């Protein structure tokens, strides 16, 4: 457990996290290894864990019916996958596939949500770290939506 705590706190997502919070979070954490091609989760699955990527690369995909899956983002080491665990109904909204051998730490969502309810300071520290990631992803998604490299009509 202690080793896991150190690994967790070394992850860039938890930079500056207080020691007492580190212990709390580690209590919800476990190791994962995903082989290339394995899915971390599928759209519609219960979002009961979010992942901190230690090594490797994860593709975020959406599959339109009748077409091949479209990769709409990639997450690499040092980054996190998943925010749906924060928001009811706690269901994943896309697929996540390991593009290569990927090591990740999964944090149990229900466990962490309970601890955040009990200790709002922990909850706020988590929010402060999630929000910038979401904001950046939202902005990137907007730029992708603009299709700046595409041909314009007229």
């Amino acid at each position, binding site marked *: 457990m202690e080793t896991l705590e150190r690994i967790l706190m070394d992850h860039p997502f938890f930079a500056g996290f207080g020691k007492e919070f580190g212990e709390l979070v580690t209590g919800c954490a476990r190791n994962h290894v995903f082989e290339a091609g394995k899915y971390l989760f599928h759209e519609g699955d219960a979002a009961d864990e979010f992942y901190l990527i230690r090594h490797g690369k994860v593709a975020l995909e959406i599959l339109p019916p009748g077409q091949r*899956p479209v990769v709409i983002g990639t997450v690499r080491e040092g980054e996190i996958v998943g925010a749906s665990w924060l928001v009811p109904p706690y269901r994943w909204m896309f697929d996540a596939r390991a593009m290569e051998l990927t090591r990740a730490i999964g944090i149990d969502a229900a466990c962490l949500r309970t601890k955040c309810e009990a200790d709002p300071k922990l909850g706020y520290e988590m929010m402060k770290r999630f929000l910038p990631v979401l904001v950046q992803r939202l902005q*990137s998604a907007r730029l992708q939506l*603009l299709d*700046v*490299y595409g041909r314009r009509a007229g």
Partner: protein
Amino acid sequence: MNLAASRTDQAADHFLPTPYRVVAAKREIRDIVTLDMVPVSGEMPEFLPGQFNMLYVFGVGEVAISISGDPADKSRMIHTVRDVGAVSDAIAALGPGATLGLRGPYGTAWPVADAEGNDVVIVAGGLGLAPLRPAIYRVLANRERYGRVAILYGAREPADILFRHELETWRKQLDINVEVTVDHADQTWHGSVGVVPPLIARAGFDPENTVAMVCGPEVMMRFSAVALGDAGVPFERIHLSMERNMKCAIGLCGHCQFGPDFICKDGAVMSYDRLAGKLTIREL
């Protein structure tokens, strides 16, 4: 036969095109073609990386195209053209032996000499890699004069990656950091998917001693410049290649104005300290 438009005549009258002959035409991807051309007579003018020429198709019209070749190669003038309108469509259809008219070179240059002694971050999007390629050639030919060099490139999808073979060659050089990302991909793509600005924070350069050169769609340049500024690069060391409607390329037709600047004379390469407040003014 009165070949009236020699370089001397162009010096006398900047409205007259000089005839050039296409010696090679290569389809890069989809609707993008690279043409190599040489003057029908006389010497090829020298040019600086970042400059452009006005290319004229007989009876069709003229369009501003950045030079995409190596300034050290005096044997030919190289342009990479995307077919987006009547004139560029006609240019992209030219094959070896065809003649076109050329006026130039015009415009300001990438600060490749000023950047010596610094880290260099090259940020390109889509066709924007073409106007930056002359700067990349120059930097790589004088690699020892620069610190860390990063080339960050974004395209729509993997099939749209321009100069893919060269990017791979550059990446193989151990002392260049090349990062390529696409807006979306299918599962056969093993690289990054996402936009260019987030690549900047990860690129590994010393912001206080960095010169950044950015070229691509204006939205992409705008956000890349913000990301560079957020990373600590001073605005006057971030350079963008701006684009506006051009008819004369010599500051007389008024079309290319962006605020008080003429993109043809005060640009296309301009520093972000001059641009920052203006890029977000609607319809400037």
